[in-house]
């Protein structure tokens, strides 16, 4: 570094963190969601009949897997301040394509690859129009939501393809040994690790946050804003299509209306997990906890004999409460930070102010 500002050694050092580690790690939105998840699980194990039964965990995970999968790229998309509402339609499109191709005699892996390819193309179209053309993602993906769903239904009509080789449909619900955990969770864990690495441990991921917090500054700092957004929409399309393949094999049915409305379940879970709809904030482990929280809650309420409508009301109230709590917290921290004086007063800062800096 030849352009060091002075020959003198560093004149000032800083602690890396203002708060002790336990506070940084424990007093977070993510921790709150995880705690709530654990509380709901414990309560259900004790009070809800059959929640501790052998099949509960299996079905809970099988049902939640598509949302878990799609929530991964969705988290990154929302952190950049964008949104992808077309994910469930891509699930449907991929499902239909898988069905049509298998019916035409393709092998399942080949057909699945083609279906995922369709997701890449669909996501690529979203990404191109948002990142390079500059269309607002909210409006655009409402459009492609209809477009991709229309293609899906158009390809297959109102009929369904239900003939899939047992080998593959069995695999979709197979468990890991005697554990009751579906094998598909292995796929999820691999993808979750990959997305966690991408978001939290790469320069690309830092760029994702920078874009969400201040897109203009990110651009000025050399973050490839357009390419980043484009790639995220491609990831979103690809993972949604993968979820579509899983969804089809799990239920053994390819239909145009598969997974209708799932985009809202995904977005709700992502927001519950602590991602800000305005972008720039959120962590992947919080999102995973958010998805599981909704899954466990629905499962427990169903076992408890609560009707679906009441379940929806409870989950809806939980989401509203989470949004309200965020606003209340922001308001409260605003109150406290306003009382804290910042900066030094200029009147008593003569020339050569450097020597009188507060040491830490």
């Amino acid at each position, binding site marked *: 570094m030849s*352009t060091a*500002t*002075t020959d003198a050694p560093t004149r000032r050092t800083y602690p*890396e963190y203002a708060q002790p580690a336990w506070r940084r790690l424990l007093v977070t939105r993510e921790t709150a969601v995880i705690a709530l998840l654990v509380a709901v699980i414990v309560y259900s194990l004790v009070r809800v009949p059959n929640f501790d039964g052998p099949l509960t965990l299996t079905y809970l995970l099988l049902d939640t897997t598509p949302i878990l999968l799609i929530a991964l790229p969705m988290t990154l998309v929302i952190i950049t301040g964008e949104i992808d509402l077309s994910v469930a339609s891509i699930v449907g499109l991929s499902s239909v394509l898988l069905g049509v191709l298998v019916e035409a005699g393709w092998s399942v892996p080949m057909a699945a690859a083609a279906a995922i390819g369709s997701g890449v193309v669909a996501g690529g179209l979203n990404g191109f129009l948002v990142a390079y053309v500059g269309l607002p993602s909210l409006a655009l993906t409402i459009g492609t939501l209809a477009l991709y769903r229309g293609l899906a239904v158009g390809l297959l009509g109102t009929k369904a393809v239900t003939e899939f080789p047992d080998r593959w449909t069995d695999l979709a619900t197979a468990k890991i040994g005697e554990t009751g955990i579906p094998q598909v969770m292995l796929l999820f864990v691999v993808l979750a690790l990959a997305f966690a690495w991408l978001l939290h441990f790469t320069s690309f991921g830092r760029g994702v946050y920078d874009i969400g917090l201040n897109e203009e500054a990110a651009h000025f700092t050399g973050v490839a804003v357009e390419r980043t957004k484009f790639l995220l929409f491609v990831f979103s399309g690809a993972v949604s299509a993968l979820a579509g393949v899983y969804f089809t094999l799990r239920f053994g049915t390819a239909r145009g209306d598969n997974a209708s409305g799932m985009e809202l379940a995904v977005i709700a879970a992502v927001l519950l997990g602590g991602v800000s709809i305005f972008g720039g904030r959120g962590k992947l482990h919080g999102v995973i906890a958010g998805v599981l929280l909704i899954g466990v809650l629905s499962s427990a309420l169903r076992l408890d004999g609560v009707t679906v409508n009441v379940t929806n009301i409870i989950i809806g109230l939980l989401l509203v409460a989470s949004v309200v709590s965020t606003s209340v917290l922001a308001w409260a921290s605003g109150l406290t930070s306003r009382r804290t004086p910042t*900066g030094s007063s*200029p009147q008593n800062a003569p020339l050569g102010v450097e020597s009188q800096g*507060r040491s830490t």
Partner: protein
Amino acid sequence: MATTSQPRLVLRDVRKSFGPVVALRSGTIEVAGGSIHALVGENGAGKSTLVKIVAGVHRRDAGEMLLDGEAVDFGSTAESKASGVAVIYQEPTLFPDLSVTENIFMGRQPLTSGRRIDRSAMYAETQALFDRLGVSIDPRRPALGLSIADQQIIEIAKAISLDARLLIMDEPTAALSGVEVERLFAVARSLRDEGRGLVFISHRFDEVFALCDMVTVMRDGEYVATRPVADTGVDEIVSLMVGREVSDLFPKTPATVGAPVLEVEGLNRTGVFHDVSFEVRAGEIVGLAGLVGAGRSEIARAVFGVDRYESGSVRLAGKAVPQHNPRAAIRAGMAFIPEDRRKQGLVTEASVARNVAGVIRRGLTRGGVLTQRAENRAAGPWAGKLEVKTNALDANAVTMSGGNQQKVVIAKWLATDPKLLIIDEPTRGIDVGTKAEVHRLLSELAGQGLAILMISSELPEVLGMADRVLVVCEGRLSAELSRDEATPENVMRAATHAGEAVR
């Protein structure tokens, strides 16, 4: 009704500061009714702040303000309007989808029986106003699509319909063509003859001399002098505007000037800048001077690649830099510290460490993994070298003072080990102590062989720091001055239209 017995507006020693920055030290002006009073001064002399105080946008901290002999204290623009003050800004803000008439009567529409809006009365009155101003605009047409000049006329018509006693025009001619300027002047003269007081702010001396009766000069937030236009000339006004010793304020240590680092050839962008060619050498600070809006920042942004240009080329250390690609510019060795540090310079909601390591983080990745710890370790020494004042590296930049934020931005770019540093308004909104630190730092960096292109609206800063001054006037380089030639008068002449007269 032309009365000149009592001044329309009197300001005495009006003071206004924003946090640590004093924008107006002692604003003083006395505007007579039935006259047009010019207010001139460099960028940052405090003209706009003074206008905003009279308009009720800001409240003064101290000093006297009298309107027609009565002490006034405006807490809002509505109060100042109600007292008969109208301000016409460079870019009027009309409601584009409403008609011209609706814009003029916004919020005070005449009513008929049953509280319905009396449109015919509105149109008739608007037509009468336009007739009086001698302009032909259809009162029913929407404001959308009107030229800036016509929009200003609408604002003036609005002011007259409110029976404004005092009209302030803040650089009204900046976006107007010659014919439009003439029409505006005719309107202004007729308003003067009706006995209203007018304040006219402009950087164009020819206009000041053609239109105004009196001229008041401001400098560094202070009143300097008032002269009758008939008794003064361009030379006196320019020297009043800039007259101060600058050399001891900003110490630039002499540096050995090396090979060219940045070479810009024939850069063009229609309507923004034209045929811009210059070079910056190693160890040299080149100042880019000119008035606000002359195109200085736009040139810098195009060179760095955040904006496009239509033709021309940029070379860094002999290698062509592709256009509209900040990443390529960074790789080539450019660093760019933009004008608006909160919006463009840093991610204020992110931590100091994230910001400082923001450009170099790609290189901090080890085995495909970038950790917070690696960023902290890389950022700490740079923050320390610049003496950023923060409690911890994970503190958000949002709570920091302007000076400290600027240090974070500078640290971020120095960490990239650049060959060329472009710095736009290095000390805007920074308290005086940090300002001196930044100047010393720039001087040191040049001494170590960094090429620096510095844009500044503060003339003393340019003159004190730069080895060479390029002056931009309306998108063109109008002069290149060596350190010895760069007197305040020469720079001001080249930056304004007065330049043509002197050459």
